């Protein structure tokens, strides 16, 4: 195995049935060494099953899984060169923090003293140096999470697996810890596969995102690609809560389409579509709320909610009820106010 394939992951036509239920239909996926890939999707879409098959906690019904160029499909979890951070952290409650972190090293045959030293280094790495003697129950949730990361990282696995690692943290901590995880991953350069159902988290940490739906891959791409060019209404809705509205393509020339949206006409990348009826994803920031009578789409405020740094509106218009964010004005408009909606240069995309 060369240094280039270390950390590479490949799923080849992997299929997984649980009894009669198809969890994964047929999965083909290649992950490059050093990449952080997120598996994103609603609950029951098969993302956790995919991760657990990679860990060796489930066996695929058919197909192959390769890690570092090596077929590991039949290799049990304890003999795969991966390690995992669990949603519940799964810290052993009867061992202290240092023992928890050293556990995997000792399983691999490392001498106790050596393992303890490495564990201490691992704890330093996640900023928990000196807490080794505490029991898991005696540290905070955020610290437990970092212990779980340290415990997985000290093994220097080819691939680090993270199963919803932030879901037990409060919102503020979540933001900080996800940045830390991303930093560590960039600094140490390991491959990471990250499962989450939170699209914001996925956008924030990933090199690439794999959106899954009902046991299949719905779309793979960088956060930017998914956001700017969703492959389907499902993706458009799942990534960044778009309004999907009816539109008409008037003409296409050199890859750009003239699209009529109600009373407006916009120029959008054609994405291979020809003239005719079409669907457009409008992000919540794609429209600017202006006073009645200005150019654009006419509408009426249905609901409004003041959220500190921005105001959320639902606006009744010819395109249907549209969700819009306004971060320019401070004073929310009362329901019933007549407004106009003007298209901004970003945030709208044709759906193929």
């Amino acid at each position, binding site marked *: 195995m060369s240094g280039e394939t270390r950390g590479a992951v490949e799923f080849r036509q992997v299929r997984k049935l649980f009894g009669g239920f198809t969890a994964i239909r047929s999965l083909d996926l290649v992950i490059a060494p050093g990449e952080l890939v997120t598996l994103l999707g609603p609950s029951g879409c098969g993302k956790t099953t995919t991760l657990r098959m990679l860990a060796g906690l489930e066996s695929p019904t058919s197909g192959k899984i390769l890690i570092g160029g090596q077929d590991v499909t039949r290799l049990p979890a*304890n003999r795969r060169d991966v390690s995992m951070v669990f949603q519940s952290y799964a810290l052993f409650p009867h061992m202290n923090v240092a023992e928890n972190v050293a556990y995997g090293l000792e399983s691999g045959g490392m001498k106790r003293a050596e393992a303890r030293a490495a564990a201490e280094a691992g704890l330093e790495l996640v900023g928990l140096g000196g807490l080794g003697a505490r029991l898991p129950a005696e540290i905070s949730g955020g610290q437990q999470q970092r212990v779980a990361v340290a415990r997985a990282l000290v093994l220097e696995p080819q691939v680090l697996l993270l199963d919803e690692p932030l879901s037990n943290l409060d919102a503020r901590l979540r933001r900080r810890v996800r940045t830390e995880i991303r930093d560590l991953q960039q600094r140490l350069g390991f491959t990471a596969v990250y499962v989450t159902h939170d699209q914001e988290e996925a956008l924030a940490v990933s090199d690439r995102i794999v959106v899954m739906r009902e046991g299949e891959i719905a779309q793979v791409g960088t956060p930017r690609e998914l956001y700017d060019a969703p492959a389907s209404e499902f993706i458009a809705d799942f990534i960044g809560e778009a309004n999907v509205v009816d539109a008409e393509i008037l003409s296409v020339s050199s890859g750009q389409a003239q699209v009529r949206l109600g009373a407006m006409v916009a120029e959008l990348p054609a994405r291979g579509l020809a003239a005719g009826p079409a669907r457009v994803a409008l992000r919540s920031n794609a429209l600017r709320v202006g006073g009645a009578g200005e150019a654009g789409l006419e509408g009426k405020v249905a609901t409004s909610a003041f959220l500190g740094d921005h105001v959320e509106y639902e606006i009744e218009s010819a395109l249907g009820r549209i969700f819009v964010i306004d971060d320019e004005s401070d004073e929310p408009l009362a329901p019933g106010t007549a407004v106009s909606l003007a298209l901004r240069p970003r945030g709208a995309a044709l759906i193929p």
Partner: protein
Amino acid sequence: MSLAGPAEAPAPPCLHSQARVMSQDNRRLDYTLAGALAVLLLVPWYRVRGGFFSFDWPGELAGKHDLWPAMAQAVTGRWQIWPVLLLLALAAVQRLVRAPGAARGRALAVIGAAGLGWMMLEGMSIGLRGWNWGLLETLFGAAAGQPAFGAGALSLGLVFTLLIAFGLAERGALKGDAFVLGAISVLVLLVATFVFYPIVSMFTGAFQDFDGSFTTEGVTRNLIDPKIWSLSCLAGGYCGVAWRTFFLAVATATGTTVLGLAFALVATRTGFPFKKSLRLLTVLPIITPPFVVGLALTLMLGRAGVVTQWIETLTGFELGRWLYGLAGIWIAQMLSFTPISFLILIGVVDGISPSMEEASQTLRSDRWRTFRKVSLPLMAPGLANAFLIGFIESMADFGNPLVLGGSGGVLSTEIFFAVVGAQNDPARAAVLASILLIFTLSAFLAQRLWLAGRNFATVGGKGDGGRHALLPARVSGPVTCIVVVWGGFTVAVYALILFGGFVRIWGLDHSLTLEHYQRAFGIAFDGGVRWTGVAWNSFWTTMKIALLAAPLTAAVGLMTAWLIVRQHFPGRAAFEFALMMSFAIPGTVIGISYIMAFNLPPVQMTGSAAILIACFVFRNMPVGVRGGVAAMAQLDGSLDEASLTLGAGSGRTMRRVILPLMRPAILAALVYSFVRAITSISAVIFLVSAKYNMATAYIVGLVENGEYGIAIAYSSVLIVVMISIIGGFQLLVGERQMRRRENGMKEARA
């Protein structure tokens, strides 16, 4: 450590791990085959009469052919061992010639299965005096007889089982986990040998004549016997034993359910001042040998009983022997099993979500309407469950009917008398046991299949606040009344047991004496301690056997629980179901089937300590399984998975993560199986021998001889011993938790 720096390319770890897998596959195979070779060369193949662990046999090897190991047996004419040697040689060839992998795995599994199959076949076919069946003799000519399997043969059976497991592991079954596969294979082998083989033997025993040939005569004679099936008591006559047992079980189940519900309601939903001490009642059935209640009842209500005499002198009316029969057994069973029903129903009554009752109250219902329309219907499945368990307990009860049965016995005692009495009719015993088994298994199946999924107790589940409604006045009054009366009765019965041992001759001479205790537990100090009391022998035997059985029971039970909860193997549900079903097999049936299965080769154990230990382990295992399942359900499953992904195998995960976390459950299983081994009577009474007599069987013997004084003194001692064991255990566990909490607080403050 490259942690702090950027990633560099180290030695190829996955090639390395692949090699490690292969060497592990080979290493465990090497150990197993080397062990098999040692056994073949050194360990006696057949059963050693004086006991293998007495180690008298190495000295006697020269003279006795039967003591020789397999290799020597094979070269001196026992051709039935040749296939075993051949199969092991084949396994060794596989090890040397082929690399680990699916192909070798299949070969090993086939070799293991063939070995086990052959050993079973030849063991069943060739008995002490040659072929077991005439047909084989005419086919193959005469064969020399062989004794029962001994240490050597049993070890080889284990080796073949492991070969199957290792083979399957190399094929990649269960993600190639040899530890789990080995555990499952060995458990299946053990359960098949010690639960299902005896039951099957019992059924076939019903169809055998004294010389072993097939006959339906005994079965048909017993199946139509009016003594079993007559229903004439409905017309004022005398009913058959099957129906009597059935009616008794229904009456007991009804009574214990009603009383148990009364206790549970009082304990959880009234302001009754002694609620806490009510819960102590639930300990009683655990510490009471089952016939003790019957014994105490005779002291109270028997012909010479205190209450009987008091009533007779007061009214001049002759009460007679009314206690000895179904009525007496019923009262004794009500006393014995109400605490069990109480224990079940506390859970049911407590488990009903308080918010249901609060919702009902906010919907304009008073307490009575809430109780009648909401609480009671929600308890219904729990009540049905308690009823079925009461039914099974009553059916399986042996101690009380034995003491109080008189002329009108029940199935369990009739089975006993069919084999030990003058009748000696194994076919009758087998038929009666089958009837009993059908009754209890039907109740068990009803409980598992019909009640499954009907339990409302956990509706609402976690995070459900609120408080249970108190009982409406028109319920709480009568219920408290029942509880006070029955509780008082129970206390009086137990007081009589403890007191009875100090009375010279019950009913005639009520002067106090220590004579019974002296005769039972006397110790003389003339040049060292001499245990002169008559009870010491059985007492120490009981302690020894219970001490040996307890860790085995706990180990087997918890291992099984772990497999059931954490491993997903094909047939898991059936495996669990079969195990739990063995819980519904009455002890009497186990006893009779063990005699029928283990009295002759291939596995001969009667009269040994091993048969008692095996009986306890497999009879009490379901308790360990339940405890283990409950304890493991509270452990987050990702702990095991975390350990696996951190590179530990199943064995190491078990040792380092599961076992330490399960320590309280392990202790509980140990104590419980120890105590149950001491109090058990129904199966034991068939299996004791002069050399290994158990306390309960000895006490029953005393009762049969009319030596009530010593019997009661001995029973009291047993009860006190068990109270101290359980109490000590409670203190130990409680204190440990306290200490841990304190430590936690200290460190948190530091």
